[in-house]
Every structure is written in structure tokens, then in C-alpha cells.
């Protein structure tokens, strides 16, 4: 359901789903759907993140895992 603030139930109840979607929708699905990345590299998400999740670190870890 869409609606005013506080009314929307979460589309992804599991934390893992939310995190995976955040990553994939910017860097994987965006290029697939529109032909360009969903990220311009401004760094605001890194500065703002309360959980100190640095998305660059996450991407580097994924890439190093993939190249092994």
C-alpha cells in the first residue's frame, strides 16, 4: 500500500533483502534496465549512513570474492 507517512508497510521485511536490493538496484538492475549506473559517486550515502556502512567497501569485498 502506498500512502502518507507512517502508513507504508515495508516492501522488504527482511534486512538481507533490503541490503541486497539497495546494492543490486544501483549497480546491477540500473544498467540492465536503463543502460547506466544508478550511482553518480557523490558519497553522500557514505557520509550519512548511521550504521557506518561504506558501500565502496561492500563493493570491493564482493569484487574480490568474485575474482577468487
Amino acid at each position, binding site marked *: 500500500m502506498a500512502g502518507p507517512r507512517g*502508513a507504508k508497510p515495508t516492501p522488504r521485511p527482511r534486512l538481507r533483502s533490503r541490503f541486497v536490493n539497495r546494492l543490486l538496484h544501483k549497480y546491477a*538492475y540500473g544498467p540492465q534496465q536503463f543502460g547506466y549506473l544508478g550511482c553518480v559517486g557523490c558519497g553522500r550515502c557514505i557520509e550519512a549512513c548511521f550504521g557506518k556502512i561504506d558501500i565502496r567497501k561492500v563493493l570491493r569485498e564482493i569484487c574480490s570474492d568474485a575474482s577468487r
Partner: protein
Amino acid sequence: MTRAVEANPYAPHVARLSGIIDETPTIKTFCFDLKEPLDFRAGQFVQLGIPGVGEAPFTPSSSPLAPQHLEVTVLRTGRLTDDLHRLGKGEVCLLRGPYGKGFPVEKLDEKDVLIVGGGVGLAPLRALIYRLLAMTDRLKKVVIKYGARETAELLFRRQYEDWAARPKVSFETTIDRPEAGWNGRVGVVTTLLENIGAEVDLANSYAFTCGPEIMLKFVTQKLLDKGFTPEQIYLSMNRRMSCGIGKCGRCNIGPYYLCKDGPDICYAKIKDYPDVF
């Protein structure tokens, strides 16, 4: 004069209820007599809303061939649907649409069509059934399997006999648990698919299914086990939608937006992405 999606795609129309049908203790059908008919394909959805509460996607259950008598069948399941169920005849709600692609009816020439519904999932499938009944000369056969929790939850029960009597159409129902007075099949709807390989021509069939997500998961698995390919299975998936027009990305499965590429989406497209079921 028909109404297509207009210049401002977010602008809802005010739709007045011309009638309400109590289908089951938890499901009602809302009937709208629209000033301008809403041309929709079976499977496309509209966003019904109540100001200050919210809006949600619903797939019309009426016939696409009768666009001025729009019917939307709604299960009471949360905040918005509670309020929708409290509306009376003559009251209004907001409506915008139709969105989505709908069922791929153009693919069905000379095919066997299998329809598997669970609970309120029969609502979008009824629009498809109406559409198919108008084109049975182009189809090989239509096999409908429907399951509900109990007899009181069998949706559109008064129409089953009529559908089963149509040429080329078969209709089978089941309820989850035994009930006094019910002499029909008992068990979840997947139990009706055990012999599906003998009932349809597997190489020339399409399967359309709609119901609770857990049911979609098991029906898809059963169909794959019985020899359907992922390309032949279409799932009517509903997600938490927001914009409904392919902009916000809330309803995505992988790179597909259910509001734009669905809500009836081919299983082959989505099967490798996370969070399908």
C-alpha cells in the same frame, strides 16, 4: 469515449460505488459505474485509494469486454482494505489506472490454457476467464483449478456451474480441510495438478496462476515438476507498490517492475532473482 492513462499519470479519478457484493466473510466486490469506461486488459491493475489513508493495487475482476461496469474484488487484510470495506453504496474512492501489461492473451491461439487460483486470487483470473470465454474458438481448451481454505471462502461460487458447462472449459475446486456437507475434493490446490500432464498438451500450454505468495511458490514448483517450462508459467504477482507507473522502483523483482512489466509476469524472467517468493 474511453479513458486512457491521461496527461498527469498520478491524477486519480473519483469513482462512485454503484453496488457492493458480499462475496465471502472477508471479500467484497465493489461495482463502479464509470462515466467514461475504463478500457483495460485482463490482468492490468488499478490503484484504488482513500484520501488520507493510502492506495493499493487491485486487479479488476470484471470482464474487459464490459468496461463501463468495472468490478474490483477486495480481500479485507489491512488498514486500507478495512476502510474500503466500510464504504457504502454511493460513496466514493479514488481510482487511477489501468497500469501494467495484463495477461498475454495474444499468445494463446491454438493453446491449452491452465488457470490455477487460490483464495482471492480468483478475482484477477475471473477477468481472464471472461476474456477467454469470448475467444474459445481460438483456444484448444481451458482448464481451471481453484482452491480455497473452506467452502465459505469459495469466491464467485455461483458462477462455477456456468463456467464448467461451457464448451472446452473444465472447472475443478478443492478446499483445504474436510467440511461437513462438502463432497468435493479436499486438499491444497496443488493436489488438483497431480495429473495435469494428462489433462493438457504440455508442449502447447500456458499456465496462469494467482493467489497468496506461498501458493504461487508451490504451484510453480508443481508445474515445473510436471513438465511445464518456466516460459510457460505466468504468475500474477502483487507487491507493495507505490507509484504504480514504473518510476519509484519499490515493486521491483530484479530489473523488472511489477507495475510496468507485470503484474502478470513470466516466471522465466524472474526466477533467478532474489526475493521472488
